[in-house]
């Protein structure tokens, strides 16, 4: 046991002495939380609009007034001809144009939108918002309630995603690189012939990263709660429980990669390409899974962060009880068992 502890302490010292990596490790969650919480959003804002109207009668003026008062649109110019508006859009000075027909007031003809559809998503959002602002459907008819996230802050959606990505990054990437580095330097041979059991060495390597992952998790949760204002509605115990399973899963993945890779570069690239890229793309972190084609939806079934992120969203933001996340927990535990078995099986006590 003493041997094990001393190995753990040695590993911890290695990590702590590398100031630059530590800085990045702690800086990354901070920066990502700040970015996602405040800077990255899909909200409709400051849409540069050109108003095209041949005559400015009362009705048109009223409509334009409503447009400029809304927070979504900024009226850049008012011109008389649609071609002029198109030219302005082409020169990238405006995003959309609203054309009021000549007899708009007497409602014999209507409106036309000309929209820069390079970004089709935003273009559709702009037209929806514009038609809502202009038409102004009877306000009393519909009562919209946004559940769990009344202010529609995008932070709520991103924080679980950041947790999933960072924990995977730390545990899988760093663990695998640290083990493979020993192989590359040649010190692995020395460790293998020492009296300690080889498996104990590997576990001793993983333990400091476990502690690191927990620290980072706590930092993220604290930041989310106090800086971003994301509520921690669910029970903290279950959040930590699910996170532990996920961290152990990521560690086994790191172990598996380190068994396969011979050089650091390979370990790095495998982790980055085969793990991180699919995780970022297919786990529902940034892009919703429902919008993907069927095949990719099936592929995302085997990606662990998908379940972790959805469990975190339910527990943290929606504040539901643990019964609702049973499915995710079972999937995560099953994956953990499989990965652990695989990594132990491929573990070689001899250098090839």
């Amino acid at each position: 046991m003493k041997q094990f502890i001393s190995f753990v302490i040695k590993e911890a010292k290695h990590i702590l002495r590398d100031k630059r990596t530590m800085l990045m490790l702690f800086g990354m969650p901070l920066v990502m939380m700040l970015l996602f919480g405040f800077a990255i959003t899909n909200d409709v804002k400051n849409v540069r609009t050109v108003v095209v109207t041949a005559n400015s009668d009362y009705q048109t003026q009223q409509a334009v007034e409503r447009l400029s008062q809304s927070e979504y649109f900024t009226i850049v110019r008012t011109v008389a001809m649609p071609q002029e508006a198109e030219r302005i859009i082409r020169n990238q000075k405006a995003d959309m144009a609203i054309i009021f027909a000549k007899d708009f007031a007497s409602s014999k003809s209507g409106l036309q939108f000309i929209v820069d559809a390079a970004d089709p998503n935003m273009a559709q959002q702009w037209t929806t918002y514009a038609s809502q602002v202009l038409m102004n459907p009877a306000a009393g008819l519909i009562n919209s309630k946004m559940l769990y996230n009344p202010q529609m802050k995008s932070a709520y959606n991103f924080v679980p995603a950041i947790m999933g990505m960072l924990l995977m990054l730390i545990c899988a990437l760093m663990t695998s690189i640290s083990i493979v580095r020993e192989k590359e330097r040649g010190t692995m041979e020395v460790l293998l012939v020492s009296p300690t059991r080889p498996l104990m060495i590997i576990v001793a390597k993983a333990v400091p990263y476990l502690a690191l992952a927990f620290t980072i998790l706590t930092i993220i949760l604290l930041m989310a709660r106090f800086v971003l204002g994301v509520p921690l509605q669910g029970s903290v115990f279950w959040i930590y429980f699910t996170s532990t399973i996920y961290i152990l899963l990521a560690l086994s993945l790191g172990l598996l990669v380190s068994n396969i890779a011979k050089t650091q570069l390979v370990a790095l690239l495998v982790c980055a390409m085969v793990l991180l890229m699919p995780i970022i793309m297919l786990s529902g972190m940034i892009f919703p899974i429902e919008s993907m084609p069927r095949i990719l939806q099936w592929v995302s079934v085997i990606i662990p962060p998908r379940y972790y992120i959805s469990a975190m969203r339910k527990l943290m933001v929606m504040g539901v009880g643990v019964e609702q996340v049973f499915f995710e927990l079972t999937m995560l535990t099953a994956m953990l068992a499989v990965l652990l078995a695989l990594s132990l099986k491929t573990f070689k006590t001899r250098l090839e």
Partner: protein
Amino acid sequence: MIRYLIQKEFLQIRRNAFLPRLIVVFPIVIMCVMPWVMQMEVKNIVVDVVDLDRSTQSQRLVHDIEHNNYFIFHGQKDSYAEALQDIEHTDADVVLVIPQDYAKDLTLGRQPQVLIAANAVNGTKGSMGAAYLSQIVTANRWSSESHQAGLNGRVATEVDEVNANPNMSAIQSKLSTLYLYNKHLNYKLFMIPALFAIVMMLMTGFLPALNIVGEKESGTIEQINVTPVSKWSFILAKLIPYWIIALFVITVCLLLAWLVYGITPAGPLWLIYLLAMLLALFFSSFGLIISNYSDTMQQAVFVMWFFVVILLLLSGLFTPTRSMPSWSYLTTYINPVSYFVESVRTVFIRGGTLLHIWHQVLALFVIGIIMASWAVLSYKKNN
């Protein structure tokens, strides 16, 4: 001299078992998979309806929702609490509650309130879903109104706070939208030019940096430092192979975009190559700077990852720069990736020419030169 060094680099890349495969497979995978994935479109929203009225009017509304392609109709529930359970279980995204006496109130000209409760953990999804659902409700209401008006022989005049729309349904039908540059609202067209940025970043940023730091770690950089090879030759010899590879990769991506998606650039092709090379200049210099200050591969990777993620996120690649708060919008002025993304989209999608993007090209050039000078100055042969 430099020719031999470049030859050596190419040989080393080829001998590495992993790298050539990565260079070929990775762009292909990115081009083939990512555009399908990067649909930020809000689709397939699951709706639960609670109809407390059960009149022909309300049933017609339910019918409208059922047959709308945008929503997936989950079912009718008996109470709001039941439907809420569906939301908690993420079986449904939006709940629509039609109150009792809905049809009666409509006939009497009153305003019955319909409740739309949307799961807004994903704010965009929640608000878009609610917005579309409310459009259906309004359309249903106006159609019933005119139906009613037809029956009663009088026109219902609404006293909204807005006098501009005496009869909304007429205007509804006369609202037309012209989408420029991307008639089919193809999101892939929007994302593919942006993918070039990611590819360039990896090929010309990460790989050279890892290369140099790898040499530092294995000690062979000391060996080359004591040779007569000048600083410039060494750096150029490290970078040029990766630039050539990057050009090759971009060509493959363009070909793939044409073959797989039928997407071709609307503007001149040489501009896209020019922009890509300017971005390569920046990323190469950046990788070089980081490798000069790092001792191990792990450090280099983490520092690069850190900055690259920030650059990419703030560049308008995934989310529009105009939606950012003003302080973070200022950072786009010094973010070369944002210039690249903007200009490559203008050329690719909108068919812009050098006239339209000259200030972005200039900005990219200036930033590239500054970074390159920093990189060369910070490389010291004797430590």
